[in-house]
């Protein structure tokens, strides 16, 4: 009955205006490009805009396993409750979208497109990310935010306004669990802020035996350790070409931090003159992956810096490293640079960025995502998630069937978050842009880039209260090197 009424309403809408309808064999020019994407049933309504100047859009969505809904307006904006009902009813099936757009007095009906509703649920609460204006050395508004995946609700965790003049740096949760969460604050009142089971501590991570503070971090699955790299990061600026900024390190090391005793566990194998960076623990916690590049005279030889994917054994019981490093993929040998290793939480895969050179694929348009099968060592590109623009800052959902990645593919400068599904064989589906209430208005008007995103299993309980005082008090827990 509802279906009949809907169709009657649609017919009335079209006929009553006394306007003509023409058919087009092309896909509707929608933003974002949601045609043929695979979505989780839990995702927020996949609203979209018709980008050909249509004054009004009419959309009917049918589920191949039943149910349908229609919307009309300036853009396709779905009722959240009905959207979730329809998506939930079509898990494993498709949602077929019929789109009509009115330009002048003519309605154009486009070729239908579909979205596949994945059988893999995405039950994480949301995503966390850093937001700031992309570009050069100066930042004004910067902050860490969390966004619910099932709705459009975004809430700040820490904004730069709370600790003026300080940079709020990369944040890391333990395999998406925010019960163990850390982020770095840079500036005069810098520190590594660690939240462990609701308690917050401010750490000074530089010691006499390490070259600097913690920069890129990764939790040990046990929650008792965090691996950090310490990097002398520099930025420089291209005079021409597609990329404006080059980020490079002229020194970097890796170490592990016992978060219970605040002791650093060092290994000379991870503190060589080579550039060691981007540590990440395997799921069993017995291997520490990292990237390493032979020392180069940067920035003069910036284009000759190629990172390899390496691994070293780690024994959490004795808190010691193995006596050798394995090179899993040799970057210099293939003339590429491998960065940001991210092992899946089910232990099957390791996802990484592959770029022509350097340690910061975020600024490299050629950067692509690749997947290493940790069971047989095979490597393949994540074709569905890749584009002609950069792909970087990727991460896994808690069940390892969804990934998120940032890419500048909308306008070549502003990174946005895309989500893809990964199946048992490591096949990646076409990625979709994180939905927004009015996507074009949101993404086109924003002057923020979305950076270092991660899934979060539950909502991050970040208490802003007291943060300012803690930051400006400069009271820090000084980490020590384990004897």
């Amino acid at each position, binding site marked *: 009955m509802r279906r009949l009424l809907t169709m009657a309403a649609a017919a009335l809408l079209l006929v009553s205006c006394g306007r003509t309808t023409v058919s087009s064999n092309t896909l509707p020019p929608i933003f974002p490009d949601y045609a043929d994407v695979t979505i989780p049933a839990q995702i927020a309504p996949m609203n979209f805009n018709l980008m050909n100047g249509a004054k009004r859009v009419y959309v009917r969505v049918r589920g191949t396993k039943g149910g349908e809904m229609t919307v009309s307006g300036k853009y396709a904006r779905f009722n959240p409750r009905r959207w979730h009902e329809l998506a939930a009813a079509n898990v494993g099936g498709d949602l077929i979208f019929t789109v009509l757009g009115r330009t002048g007095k003519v309605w154009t009906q486009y070729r239908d497109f579909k979205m596949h509703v994945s059988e893999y649920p995405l039950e994480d609460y949301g995503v966390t990310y850093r937001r700031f204006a992309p570009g050069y050395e*100066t930042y004004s508004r910067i902050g860490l935010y969390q966004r619910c995946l099932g709705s459009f609700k975004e809430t700040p965790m820490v904004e730069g306004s709370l600790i003026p003049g300080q940079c709020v740096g990369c944040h890391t949760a333990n395999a998406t669990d925010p019960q163990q969460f850390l982020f770095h604050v840079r500036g005069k009142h810098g520190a590594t802020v660690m939240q462990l089971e609701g308690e917050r501590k401010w750490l000074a991570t530089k010691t006499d035996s390490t070259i600097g503070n913690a920069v890129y971090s990764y939790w040990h699955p046990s929650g008792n350790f965090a691996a950090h790299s310490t990097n002398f990061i520099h930025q420089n*600026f291209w005079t021409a070409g597609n990329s404006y900024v080059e980020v490079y390190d002229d020194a970097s090391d890796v170490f592990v931090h016992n978060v219970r005793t605040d002791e650093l566990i060092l290994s000379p194998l991870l503190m060589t003159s080579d550039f060691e960076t981007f540590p990440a623990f395997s799921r069993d916690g017995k291997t520490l992956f990292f990237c390493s590049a032979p020392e180069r005279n940067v920035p003069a030889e910036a284009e000759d810096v190629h990172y390899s994917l390496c691994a070293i054994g780690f024994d959490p019981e004795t808190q010691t490293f193995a006596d050798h490093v394995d090179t899993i993929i040799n970057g210099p040998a293939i003339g590429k640079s491998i960065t940001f290793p991210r092992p899946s939480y089910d232990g099957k895969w390791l996802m990484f960025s592959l770029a022509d050179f350097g340690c910061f694929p975020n600024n490299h348009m050629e950067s692509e995502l690749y997947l290493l099968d940790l069971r047989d060592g095979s490597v393949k590109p994540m074709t569905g998630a890749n584009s002609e623009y950069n792909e970087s800052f990727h991460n896994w959902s808690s069940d390892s069937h969804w990934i998120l990645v940032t890419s500048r593919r909308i306008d070549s400068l502003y990174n946005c978050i895309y989500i893809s599904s990964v199946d048992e064989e490591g096949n990646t589906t076409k990625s979709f842009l994180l939905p927004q209430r009015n996507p074009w208005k949101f993404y086109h008007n924003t002057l923020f880039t979305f950076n270092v995103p991660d899934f979060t299993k539950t909502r991050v309980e970040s208490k802003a209260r007291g943060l300012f005082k803690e930051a400006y008090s400069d009271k820090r827990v000084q980490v020590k090197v384990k004897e």
Partner: protein
Amino acid sequence: MRKDAQIIVSSVFWLAMALFWFLAYPQALGFQEQNQLFLFTWDYLGERLSVTGGLADWIAEFLTQFNYIPWLGALLLSGLFVLLQMLVWKLSDSESLEWYPLSYIPSLLVLMHMGDIYAMPAHLAALVLTAALSLVYMRKPSLWLPLVAIPLGFWLIGPAIWIFVLFVVFFHRKPADLLYPLYLLAIIFLYRATFMQQYPPKSVFFGVNYYRWPLTVPVLQLVVAASVFVVPVIVRSLPKARNSLMVAVSLACVIVAGAFFGVRATYGRDTYEIIAYDQLIRHEKWQKVVDRASLYQPKSDIGCVSVNLALFMTGKMDLMDDFYQCGTRGLIMPRVRDLISNVSSYEVFWRMGFVNSALRYAFDSQESEMNYRKSGRFMSKMAECQIVNGRYEVARKYLDILKHSLFYSKWAKSKELLLGNEGLIAADPVYSYLRAVKFSDRFLFNYGEMDKMLYILAARNENNIMARSYFMAWKRLQEAGGGEQ
């Protein structure tokens, strides 16, 4: 005092203030205007209203955008000064002619405070709003007004609402009114614990938008605010003088003299000279920069960059030695995080063909806004750089934002036509020239090797006279021992 006389004196004050801004410190108007980008969108209003003092800020920004036309901006800004003066006099509730000049004290203190380039017009707007609210209460006291106006006022006007609370407490002097300050304190704590969690307590208590630098509260800002309350209180308590005309004239003389010396003390000559150069460069009035520098030139890197650019643009670079020089930094400055240092250098970069560097300096200038404002001027330049670089989608983003402004909209619409239209860009003398002279070789910018970069740029296109002139000047200054170390 007779009403028509008051109107005449206030009108003279308005005119004097407008002339002050328009003739003496037009650069201050331009500086305020270029460090904001007022947009006619609900989202913009919503963003302003998302923090305390948002309405005062929004009104001030709305008025400040008219500084784009200096005489209009001067008139509107001066109007706020006059409004404040008139409200203070009304709050004084005095019929005595002799004390009338005292009502100008708060406005003149604001004038002095605004000599600080980081002082925001939002503070003045907040004072006017809270004074107006106080007057409404004085005229029609009621119980409900403070109950509603205090929470709403704190949200929309900001901490300046304390002035209203003080008026409520002191003018009726009922013991129960002493609860109002406690009420406001409770409101402030409530806001701090809810909507304003992401701001430090000091910002919430002293205002988020009254001063560009967070966590900084200049003493003069507090003095100005206090004067809006103190002056009416004093005037009310003063007895009628015997020779009222003489007292009035004497007071007026003292106040005018105080304002004169106060303004001299607070409007730093070097700072405003540099801003004046910048505004003249913005409008390509090169000869005026040279003329100003001939009379007085601040001994600073940025002033030197501006003067040297103006000398090149007027074909007088051979006269460089007649002006203050500070080595190669006086040709192009290394990047500095503040609101003015990068600006003249990006103008040099832009004209010479360092398009990516112009973009970088413009971007960093915009992001140097500690209060998160954007800039019509810098965003326009960023859009132009992206057009020259052929990155049209980013340019479109900036242009579409600018289209929501009053004074950049027309420009943005005209530039929108160029996006993706190579023929139109080729026909544009500036963009086609820059495409012809800009770097084609991709290498990393290195300020320490600026001479080499200038050489490469000059060698790339023999028509790039500017690169050649700057290269030669750079080498000469380097050899003279004034190079960047």
